[in-house]
């Protein structure tokens, strides 16, 4: 080992010792009051202004259901609007100024038609099977990540000593 390496090693040891010997720094007296104040402020919030995970189940389940219904509803609605736009834009008096709008509406309507044709051409069993397979794969992947995290990631940090 060269003399430089020995010096660096000695410096590392001394710095480590000086730092490890440092006592914990005292937290400001205001910290506890700030945390309690923030918790109290959060507790005063109405339930609907907090995270959805804390909402009452009687509200949370219907909201999730409504959201699930809204997704296809918005899709159908946008297709309907696109079709309306096409019909309005093809009107002789409006054809000129609304040409670009007509193009956009036509493109969306075409995309929707193609998508619906593709979905309709898939046998129902395949569709249901695909949804189940996707959900299963998602669950398996989630479980693998959770196991991997607890086995590989957490132990590395749990080695940290309380100073």
């Amino acid at each position, binding site marked *: 080992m060269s003399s430089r390496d020995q010096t660096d090693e000695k410096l590392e040891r001394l710095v480590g010792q000086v730092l490890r010997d440092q006592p914990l720094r005292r937290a400001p007296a205001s*910290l506890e009051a700030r945390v309690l104040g923030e918790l109290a402020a959060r507790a005063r919030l109405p339930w609907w202004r907090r995270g959805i995970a804390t909402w009452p189940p009687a509200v949370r389940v219907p909201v999730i259901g409504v959201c699930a219904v809204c997704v296809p509803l918005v899709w159908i609605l946008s297709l309907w609007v696109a079709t309306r736009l096409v019909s309005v834009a093809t009107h002789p008096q409006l054809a000129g100024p609304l040409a670009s709008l007509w193009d956009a509406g036509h493109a969306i309507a075409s995309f929707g038609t193609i998508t619906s044709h593709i979905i309709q051409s898939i046998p129902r069993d395949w569709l249901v099977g695909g949804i189940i397979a996707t959900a299963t794969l998602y669950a398996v992947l989630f479980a693998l990540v959770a196991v991997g995290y607890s086995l590989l990631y957490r132990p590395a940090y749990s080695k940290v000593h309380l100073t």
Partner: protein
Amino acid sequence: MRAYQDMVFSTAVRLTGNPAQAEDISQDVFLRAYESFDNLRSSPKAGGWLKTVATNLTLNHLTRHRKRWRLFSEIFSDDSREEELEPSAESAAAIFDTVLTELETDERRALVERALERLPDHQRIPLVLYHYEEMPYQDIADRLGISLAKVKTDILRGRVAMAGLLAPGGRPAPDDRRQSPSIPRGAQS
């Protein structure tokens, strides 16, 4: 909370070098702890959990801050000037040796805290992760998104720079920097 607030605050302030930011981060840590209160209440790992969350939140805070200010720090930083003012590794070791043997605990605590706060972020953060959190070089490099070589260089230069800050006047005089170690404040009396 009282049992752990000093530990959480110390973790944050050592990494940030800024008591006000450390207090904000500590508040976030305890608010998260409150969200997991049912699991933590009786867990013997509560201290470790709080320490890990404090470290992660502080590093996230510093990463955001670093991204925001990187451009300016790269424009205005002058590493060559910094290096020119630093003592040699040998002098640095002697300064730390003097700090350990000749200073009273309270005096040493204040001096080391101040020196750590004055280190630039790119030296203080890896230095603290290495010496306080006992993270290996590679983990530090991964966590900070920098190369292994840079981590090693920054830690080494951080130790030397810290010695310079522990010397009287914060930095050793250029004439003295390659000679015998300076005696820290307080050790002179």
